[in-house]
């Protein structure tokens, strides 16, 4: 089973990198670009075949390592 984990900064946490990307896009002429927030994507192969069990394990992985929940939130996509 393949899973994809999205990790992004929580709302309200300043994202200086996102801001710099936004400025650069404006500089390239993309005038419609407003706020930009960046994050990371982690792809994980799992031997687990039960989707519910996989999701529970992935949530545990996010809480223990993949995300720092002081500043980040995560979303899990399976399949």
């Amino acid at each position: 089973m393949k899973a994809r984990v999205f990790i992004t900064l929580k709302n309200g946490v300043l994202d200086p990198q996102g801001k710099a990307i936004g400025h650069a896009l404006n500089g390239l002429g993309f005038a419609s670009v407003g706020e930009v927030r960046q994050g990371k994507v982690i792809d994980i192969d799992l031997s687990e075949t039960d989707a519910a069990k996989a999701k529970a394990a992935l949530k545990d992985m996010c809480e223990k390592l993949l995300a720092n929940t002081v500043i980040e939130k995560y979303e899990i996509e399976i399949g």
Partner: protein
Amino acid sequence: MKAAVIVFPASNCDRDAATALEAMTGKKTAMVWHQDNELPAGTDLVVLPGGFSYGDYLRCGAMANQSSIMAAIKAHAEKGGAVLGICNGFQVLTESGLLPGALMRNAGLKFICKPVALEVTETQSAFTRNYAAGQAVTFPVAHGEGNYVADDATLDRLEGEGRVMFRYQNNPNGSARDIAGILNEKRNVLGLMPHPERAVDPATGGSDGRAMFQGLIEALS
């Protein structure tokens, strides 16, 4: 005082820390590899040094927190043993939960490497007992991710309990409430971004850091 410096892959201030400790204590400092499971017997002070442990993969300090030595460090802190996390060491301490909050990319996005003016905010700790409250000191900083972030309730609690130990006089990195260094609730774990171990010799970087090590020696010997 028996000190141990933890060495992670890509720690790069471990020898600076050992040199400073040895100059101040006159004793050999133990260098402890991250894959070890225990601290040398009788360790009084554990130093988590600056650097780029595990190449800052995932998040600064996140992989170091998974090292086998961390269980021993947490047990040492739990028993009231002193732990000093400098720069990347501070990041490891927040990742481990020994200190609250997190350290994010500097607000200006630049890596900052220069001496900075700090205020010693609190003196009630083994780390700061030899400073005067409100004393101005200069320590070097060298970091790209030193922007201290925590929710307002946590910040209020840190301030209310006298656990903000150092503040920037001219905030270089966007840290909330100018915070440069904080203490845990039991007052035995300090994390700070500036480098006191690079300020123990007037020939290189000033000597304002000496009082921290002197205070630790007096408190822990």
